[in-house]
């Protein structure tokens, strides 16, 4: 009888502790309540240091974008970099993903082209895929550079790269195809 009572007590305590733990995690991982980009990143970085909030990085990033759109400034780039570094340091995201986010949103050049090590004659057989990825990325650059940073020049530079790259990629792909056809 005593054994049954001890078991029941332990089971009850475990259940209560578990529930309490989940509740605490939910509360600590809720979105930071800040309307200023810098304050939001301070708060979000602190939350990312908490192991149980690791999976909330994308939500934090999305919310920071919304706050950034309300407060466009070139300084926002540094704040996004700070959040991404926090995400990487805390293990919430991989270094590669962090770099991808940063480059897709805040750099004029296209991340989509940076990781392929094949020669153009091989890689550009899938140029439609590249162009499609670049189009999506241009949308992210619009958000990052134009909406969040207010950097019109930077975004126009991206547009120019897009136009030039698609022209050159088309021409190179055709030249490779014509070379194959002549063989």
């Amino acid at each position, binding site marked *: 009888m005593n054994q049954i009572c001890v078991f029941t007590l332990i089971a009850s305590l475990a259940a209560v502790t578990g529930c309490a733990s989940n509740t605490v995690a939910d509360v600590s991982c809720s979105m930071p309540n800040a309307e200023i980009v810098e304050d939001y990143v301070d708060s979000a970085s602190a939350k990312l240091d908490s192991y149980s909030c690791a999976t909330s990085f994308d939500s934090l990033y999305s919310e920071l974008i919304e706050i950034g759109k309300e407060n466009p400034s070139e300084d926002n780039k540094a704040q996004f970099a700070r959040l991404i570094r926090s995400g990487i340091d805390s293990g919430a995201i991989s270094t590669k993903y962090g770099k991808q986010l940063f480059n897709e949103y805040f750099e004029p050049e296209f991340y989509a*082209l940076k990781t392929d090590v094949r*020669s153009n004659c091989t890689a550009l057989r899938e140029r439609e895929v590249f162009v499609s990825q670049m189009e999506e990325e241009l949308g992210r650059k619009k958000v990052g550079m134009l909406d969040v940073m207010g950097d019109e020049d930077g975004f126009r530079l991206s547009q120019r790269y897009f136009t030039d790259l698609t022209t*050159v990629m088309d*021409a190179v792909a055709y030249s490779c195809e014509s070379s194959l056809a002549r063989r």
Partner: protein
Amino acid sequence: MMMKKEAVPTKVRPLVSACIAVLLAGPQVSTATVGTGPAINLFTPVSIESLSATSKNAKALESSLESLIERLETQSSLYEAANCAVATDSGCQNLLRGMKETYRALLVEMQDHLPEIRESIEVTRDSLANQMQMELGRKMTPGDLQRLLAGRDGFSDPLHSQRSSTKGGRLSGLFEGYYKLVKRNGVGADSGAVLASELYLDSMYSAKYLDLIEAEIDSQQTELLLELEWVDLTAQMNGTVGNVKRLLWGDVGDREELLNIGLEPLVETKATFSDLYVN
């Protein structure tokens, strides 16, 4: 009987030779040797010579066709104004006969000039295809292309504003614009790559379009010889003249201006975000 003409007209040869001599004597055109970046050589003397020839040939054709097309359009307007499609009086018959003669002269003129234009365009196209495939297709990755266009890793700074002058309405103007840009020393490697690409694509599409026009002209020559139905001929005639005009003088919107935004490269130092930046 049509005589095959030389690719470069005699009167153009001294100019072309002089240009080639200058190019060979001076720094290689559109070769990037700045810094430690790889040298890119997209324009060869052959492609430059054919570029010049295309421009000259197209200009000659434009001049010879201008008066014929003008006359044909005047006759066509009179034909429509007199409602000759339904009327059969002698005035309309004379008008039709005149149109037929003008149109035949136009077809002959085009048959004489188009082969040499096509030949020079094809030389340009094939020469560029070889160089692009070798220099950009095999030696470079997509990332290298981007670095090249961005003027990084030892390549010169972007000079994109130069390219806007290549976009003229006329075929001769288009190729003349390219020729002037290409022969100008100091064109950066990046703009050289974009310029070569635009020229290659324009040459490719022009050659295809010329094939279509030549086939159309051949078939209409046959129809003229066979004295086929006038009404059909008039409709086809308008189509052919329209196509030739589009080829030679361009269409509004066909040759859309590229972004010419005159921006300086970003001066922001990458060092601040070097841990997040992907090269």
